[in-house]
């Protein structure tokens, strides 16, 4: 893309951001809004980049949280996929176990995070478990939907040529379900970040732990800076999955393969 095209693309989303930041800066500096309620964007910038040890601590916390989110997400992706495949193996399996998979969707993670600490301790394992619990259901549900909506004609064709269960799974069902699986992973990526941060509220450490500290110190500038970092983490994970999706589905649609 040319520079002009980039400008054209970035201008619409960036403009509101600039306007809001400018308004915040002015409102606080003019004393219309108290600085302990809303930080100036410049102070958030300071906390993120020019606050010496404080800034370094934040970026290190980002890495910790990234670690927990990625691990929890990877666990969700792998186990979610396996669970969905097992659920479709027979009608009775699905009827017997799917309701319990739904349970994961309704778990109030805030409420059970303290319990996870008791079970797993004040370390990364709790954070990973928390990220996993909130992010596994979308993977299961979307993979399941994908596996169940395989083209019936193609199923017939596989039957006609005597394909076994394994061949049908790997050569037909899973590839057919790929778009649905990717949708599930995209949702799971954002949820895994939330789950990891909630876990860190309890265990300390990472962005979640830092938010707790900043809140107690009434440092709204730091809280905002950490929120930005967690959003950054979510966007990075989401983009990685989008990229993986575009690469793996590039032949499916004429628009993307024609060029």
């Amino acid at each position: 893309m040319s520079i002009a095209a980039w400008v054209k693309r970035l201008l619409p989303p960036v403009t509101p951001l600039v306007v809001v930041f400018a308004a915040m800066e002015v409102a606080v500096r003019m004393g219309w809004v108290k600085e302990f309620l809303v930080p100036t964007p410049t102070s958030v910038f300071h906390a993120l980049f020019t606050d010496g040890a404080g800034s370094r601590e934040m970026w290190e916390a980002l890495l910790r949280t990234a670690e927990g989110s990625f691990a929890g997400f990877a666990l969700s992706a792998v186990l979610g996929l396996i669970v969905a495949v097992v659920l479709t193996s027979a009608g009775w399996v699905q009827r017997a176990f799917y309701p319990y998979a739904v349970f994961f969707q309704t778990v109030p993670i805030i409420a059970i995070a303290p319990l996870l600490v008791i079970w797993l301790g004040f370390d990364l394992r709790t954070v990973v478990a928390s990220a996993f619990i909130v992010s596994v259901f979308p993977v299961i549900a979307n993979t399941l939907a994908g596996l169940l909506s395989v083209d019936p004609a193609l199923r017939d064709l596989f039957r006609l040529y005597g394909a076994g269960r394994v061949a049908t799974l790997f050569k037909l069902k899973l590839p057919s379900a790929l778009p649905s699986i990717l949708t599930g992973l995209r949702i799971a990526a954002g949820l895994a970040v939330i789950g990891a941060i909630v876990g860190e509220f309890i265990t300390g450490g990472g962005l979640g732990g830092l938010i707790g500290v900043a809140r107690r110190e009434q440092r709204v500038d730091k809280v905002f800076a950490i929120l930005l970092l967690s959003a950054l983490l979510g966007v990075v994970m989401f983009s990685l999955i989008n990229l993986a999706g575009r690469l793996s589905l590039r032949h499916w649609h004429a628009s993307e393969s024609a060029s």
Partner: protein
Amino acid sequence: MTAIPTSASTGGIGLTLRDVRRAFLGGVVAVDGISLDVAPGEFVAILGPSGCGKSTLLRAIAGLDRPTSGLLQLLDPNAKEKGDGGRALAYVFQDAHLLPWRNVLRNVAMPLELMGVAANERADAARNALEQVGLGDAMRRYPAQLSGGMRMRVSLARAMVTRPRLLLLDEPFAALDELTRQRLDEMLRGLWDRAGMTVLFVTHSIAEAAFLADRAVVMTRRPGRVVIDHRLTLGRERSGATRTSEVYVREMRVLYEALERGDRGEPA
């Protein structure tokens, strides 16, 4: 690894149906007492209005569905081993139903892959099948890059790749424009001429049935029964000229009248 069945040389599979009936749960009778004999290597069109149980019949013949009652037998004059039936059959659907993540060559090779044929052997067979449908230069392309007519030709090549002795087609060209469809009709007729398999071609088009088949079986609307079983008097050679010939028009009329009778629910 099994070798590609070289069944084409051994001709087609015959077919015997006696009082085949298929009723679905809830009481809908799709097919009601069909009796039919198809000789090995025959090209038979099954003509009927939409929803007359043509597809149900075809699925039953393919072994994808079981008739509620009646006898359905495949007669393979050259069968050496039993239980080989599935591989001798091929099925073409109304839409191409290709795998979007596979290129054309790998789509066509898919049946052989499922049957356990070695990779280089199945690639050769797929290439050969694609050349037969005139797609020798589109092998690396993906289904999304093809037109509807090309996709259908890939689907046809996929069916031909196992050298089937019984080819079942369920309104395969119904979604295509008239010209493309006529070309594909001619191509199919040519494939049959060379390979000599038995063909059962389900359609709701009188023109298509008359052009393609040696014999047309006209069905009533649901529950499906046979109105007439008509041997067409057109020669073996079919071409564009066939479509304007007098015999062709006369045959179309016969089929049209039978179809009308069937629509009023009057079996012969």
